[in-house]
């Protein structure tokens, strides 16, 4: 019965819940969904992680390759991220080249990683101007139930933390490359950027900020994706994106910044626990 009502009057269905200060899935406006995290699920990837934020599922696989550094930056390795929003994750996506939304998400995630400078590209260089690592991070979204950028960042950081680089011996005269996979050094990650998504719902006269919106809530708030994404890295903000469509008052903004900071601490603890359990 509730399903039918939701299909016929989606706005009224949503409003009925909001008027009672609760969301359709039972959470309060400030509650986030449970996070489930798992590492090393994919054996063919050099490092992998699977995260489930509520129903949103994202898998990240990291593959390492060797390449020659760019001529104008001979000391730097390469770090390439890519987000794939498959047709299987949501009925809105059709097969073919990536849709606009997919490209936007891919770009947002890539910007956050580069801006946070958590991966030091100098460390990826083995021999300057001759050999460097290329770290390909591919995030595949399996189920899109909102807050996809959050989930992508979490799974990306977790797999980077569990990544180990094998030792490479490069003989300069013979140009011979010998990769020793038995000796592995962990990659040095500075800081841990964590993103938090928000959706802003206009119900005049007030506007309500919802944390960690689900796909239905994102749709209600006018969008493709969350309205506001804040990325926090150890007390510093390394990315804030506000997509157009709804107004955000300044004290609501201050509140969201504080919430984002708190959430990043919580998520950091989750990631640390997961990695400690994995090593055991």
């Amino acid at each position: 019965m509730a399903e039918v009502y939701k299909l016929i009057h989606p706005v009224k269905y949503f409003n009925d819940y909001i008027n009672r200060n609760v969301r359709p899935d039972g959470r309060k406006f400030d509650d986030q969904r449970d996070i489930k995290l798992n590492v090393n699920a994919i054996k063919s990837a050099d490092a992998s992680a699977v995260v489930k934020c509520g129903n949103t599922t994202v898998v990240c696989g990291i593959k390492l390759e060797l390449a020659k550094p760019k001529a104008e930056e001979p000391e730097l390795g390469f770090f390439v991220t890519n987000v794939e929003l498959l047709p299987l994750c949501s009925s809105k996506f059709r097969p073919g080249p990536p849709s606009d939304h997919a490209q936007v998400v891919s770009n947002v995630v890539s910007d956050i990683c580069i801006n946070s400078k958590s991966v030091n590209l100098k460390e990826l260089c083995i021999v300057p101007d001759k050999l460097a690592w290329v770290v390909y991070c591919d995030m595949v979204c399996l189920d899109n139930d909102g807050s996809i950028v959050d989930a992508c960042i979490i799974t990306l950081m977790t797999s980077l933390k569990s990544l180990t680089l094998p030792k490479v011996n490069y003989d300069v005269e013979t140009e011979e490359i010998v990769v020793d996979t038995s000796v592995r050094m962990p990659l040095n990650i500075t800081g841990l950027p964590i993103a938090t998504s928000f959706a802003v719902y206009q119900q005049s006269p007030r506007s309500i900020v919802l944390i960690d919106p689900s796909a239905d809530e994102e749709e209600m708030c006018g969008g493709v994706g969350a309205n506001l994404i804040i990325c926090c890295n150890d007390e510093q903000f390394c990315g804030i994106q506000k997509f157009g469509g709804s107004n955000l008052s300044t004290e609501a903004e201050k509140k969201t910044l504080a919430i984002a900071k708190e959430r990043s601490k919580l998520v950091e603890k989750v990631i640390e626990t997961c990695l400690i359990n994995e090593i055991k």
Partner: protein
Amino acid sequence: MPPPDLLSSQGLRLDGRRPNELRRIRCKLGVFTQPDGSAYLEQGNTKVLAAVYGPHQAAKSKSSVEGVVVNCQYSMATFSTGERKNRPRGDRKSQEMSLHLRQALTAAIKTELYPRSQIDIYIEVLQADGGAYCASVNAATLALVDAGVPLRAYACACSASMAWRGAQPEPLLDVGHVEEAAGGVVLTVASLPSTGSIALLELSHRLHSDYFEMVLSRAMQGCKDIEIVLDKAVREHLAEGWTKQDVVTI
């Protein structure tokens, strides 16, 4: 001359299995919320996801009056194989796989029930260790069952190869990546085991016609075994669903 090391002297294969042993299959239905039907299947180290959308309105160009149009897309994650795969979909191999999947599944679905409609099946391979096509067909069958699409029978796929033990030929069931790469012959069969009919059959490399029957019957037996496993998984999923479902009063 087939490579001599596919079967050891004790009769064990490269991964320790016996010649007529399937890899371990673990599967789960209804893993995602967005698609109408979804399934996750592991066959040994090969991990495959399947999602089904439909039946829904067909695109004008594709709509057919005679029955439903089945649209398949086979995609491999870039980290699924040993070497990074640059083009997850759209390359020739994926398109060929998509076509074969479509042919196998169209034979299983009762297409005459939904004219002018379309069913979309999306397959994503997370880890490929040989037998990706077979795992995809099995996962797609489970996803179709989860979506409630009427099927004539389960569509199961299995592969078989041939090895020599001394001078005796010994067919091997369910080839893994190592055995495929070793260069032996691989026969892939997608069939509807309860009716005994074959939906798709593919043979790579050369096989003497004297041994063909033997390898084919081994693969068909494999399909029957897989059907038992899939059926059990479907029944368990339904039993779980019914005990948890709320009673709806209108």
